[in-house]
């Protein structure tokens, strides 16, 4: 089959002097490839046979090492796990770009240091408390089953590249580091659960995730970082970290629906920021006023739905704690 790859080329150092472009630009390569070729196979062939200046990082070519994450037609994924025939069966042009949310070093190679800095920030090592066992720490198999998914992470960075929050705020810990944090919060041998959750509960942590499923889609290993972040939110609340807008929002939302079966949008924002949080209550006023002027305010009298007793019964039966 014929493959056409439109590759983003860029060398930030103005004086690279190797003939590569100094401003980002797209270069199109057309080549004949076998049907079984992946995007990475094609990139290697380009580098070896057409253009030796193309920079691409790779190693195992088997979706294990996590080196070749990049954006392919806008989606963050492993180049070695993406068959050309699956995404361009008629030989359509495939756009290949470096991962987003990380500085580009050259062409498809990004600087992973900001990624590693955030992984380090969650202290990704076991911190047991109490006396050391004579030999190894013994853990029943079933206690580790829930961690299998998250331990499959190969640190490729695809989730970080796809993250919509990191796109606008580099302060966010991001999906990879938070999934790694989950791995230690839920490890039965770790003794710092509370301290870890206290850190994750801060600005830039679990409550800054916008729940967009981009990282779940991007992850080549089924780690589902966003799902782990939502579980960490639950963990934070059950460990008593309830003094955040996020925790109040989830609690108020649940209680309002339990009460009337549907959301009271007048009360939810107020209860989420807290009744005595004057600064944030004042921030809500302009939008409230605008909605009032445009007759867009939700009904002041919020009536429960018919048959609310049946909804309350389900809440009583299926609520935990």
């Amino acid at each position, binding site marked *: 089959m014929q493959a056409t790859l439109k590759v983003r080329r860029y060398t930030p150092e103005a004086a690279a002097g190797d003939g590569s472009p100094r401003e980002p630009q797209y270069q199109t390569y057309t080549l004949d490839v076998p049907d079984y070729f992946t995007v990475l196979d094609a990139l290697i062939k380009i580098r070896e046979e057409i253009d030796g200046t193309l920079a691409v990082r790779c190693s195992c070519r088997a979706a294990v090492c996590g080196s070749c994450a990049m954006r392919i037609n806008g989606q963050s994924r492993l180049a070695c796990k993406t068959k050309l025939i699956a995404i361009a069966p008629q030989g359509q042009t495939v756009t290949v770009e470096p991962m987003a949310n990380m500085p580009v070093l050259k062409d498809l190679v990004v600087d992973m240091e900001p990624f590693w800095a955030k992984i380090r920030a969650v202290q990704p090592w076991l911190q047991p408390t109490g006396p050391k066992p004579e030999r190894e720490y013994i853990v029943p198999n079933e206690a580790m089953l829930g961690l299998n998914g998250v331990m499959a992470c190969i640190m490729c960075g695809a989730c970080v590249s796809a993250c919509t929050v990191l796109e606008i705020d580099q302060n966010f810990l991001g999906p990879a580091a938070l999934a790694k944090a989950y791995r230690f919060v839920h490890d039965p041998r770790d003794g710092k659960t509370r301290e870890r959750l206290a850190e994750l509960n801060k600005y830039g942590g679990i409550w800054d995730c916008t729940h967009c499923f981009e990282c779940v889609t991007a992850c080549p290993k089924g780690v589902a970082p966003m799902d782990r972040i939502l579980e960490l939110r639950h963990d934070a*609340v059950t460990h008593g970290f309830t003094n955040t807008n996020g925790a109040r929002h989830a609690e108020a939302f649940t209680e309002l629906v339990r009460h009337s079966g549907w959301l009271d949008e007048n009360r939810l924002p107020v209860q989420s920021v807290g009744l005595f949080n004057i600064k944030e209550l004042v921030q809500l006023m302009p939008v409230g006023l605008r909605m009032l002027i445009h007759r867009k305010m939700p*009904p002041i009298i919020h009536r429960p739905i018919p*048959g609310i007793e049946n909804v309350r019964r389900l809440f009583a*039966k299926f*609520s*935990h704690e």
Partner: protein
Amino acid sequence: MASVPLKYAWFPGCVSRGACRELYQSMTRVATVLGIELVELKEAACTGAGVISERQPDVADAINTRTFALAQRLGLPLLNNCSTCQGVMSAVQARLHADPHRLQRINEALAEEGLRYDGGLSIKNFLWALVEDYGLDRLKRLVTRPLTSLRVAPFYGCYILRPAEKLGLDERPERAQYLEWVISAVGAEPVDFPGKTRCCGFPILTMNRRNSLTMAGKHLADAQDLGADCMVTPCPLCHLNLDAQQPDAARTIRQPLALPILHLPQLIGLALGLSPRELGMQKHIVSTRRIEQRLRQAPAGALAG
């Protein structure tokens, strides 16, 4: 092609009865003109919007299963007009189908009010129903005011696109293009822009206001810079962040913004010849006057057929 009358159990969702009542209004008006019968599920509870499941996942599954059972009792497919509702319902349905014991436990509780969910319910957002059940050719035949002069940016909302396998995009990848198809079907021109499948920022509005408004502002500015006259969304939560918060988003990104945001039924309604007032457009925070001016250039009936 003979026109088959369509009838749905309709789940309007909280926002279309609260802060976006113009969505409820336009949905019912447009359904009438299209000949779609909506039987409102007044007893159905909020989906939980993925928030209740953070605190009480089993409750979230139970109250949504109850909604499915209410629709099934009527013998009707379920229709919603919210990307978020669609996402939650599809996720719950996938969990129930994967775990019959979970469904059985919920059914035991539902039996107390004489309800039961047997699985297999068709659950569709209005966007999907319009393309897959109603048909765009049928819609085109009813267009009396083609929106030929209008450049419309699509905005999907995360939960109608991701996770793809739960939302049926594995079998129907074209669901990620339906908005563009509908925009073209009513005679308008789709404006492609990178933010159309991204997050509007609404879920973190109370957690990190600055980030939330920056996200909304970025997408609005991108669409505006590409020459869009307006944006259309099948999600009222996106609408809240993109319309009601737009003045604050503009201040946050320090860039003037004046992009009207339409609910999906409003775009359809305009093409069907309904007036902006009938579609509740006067309730929007960002003035829709620009759209009305454009429409005056192509008055109702002028290009019918």
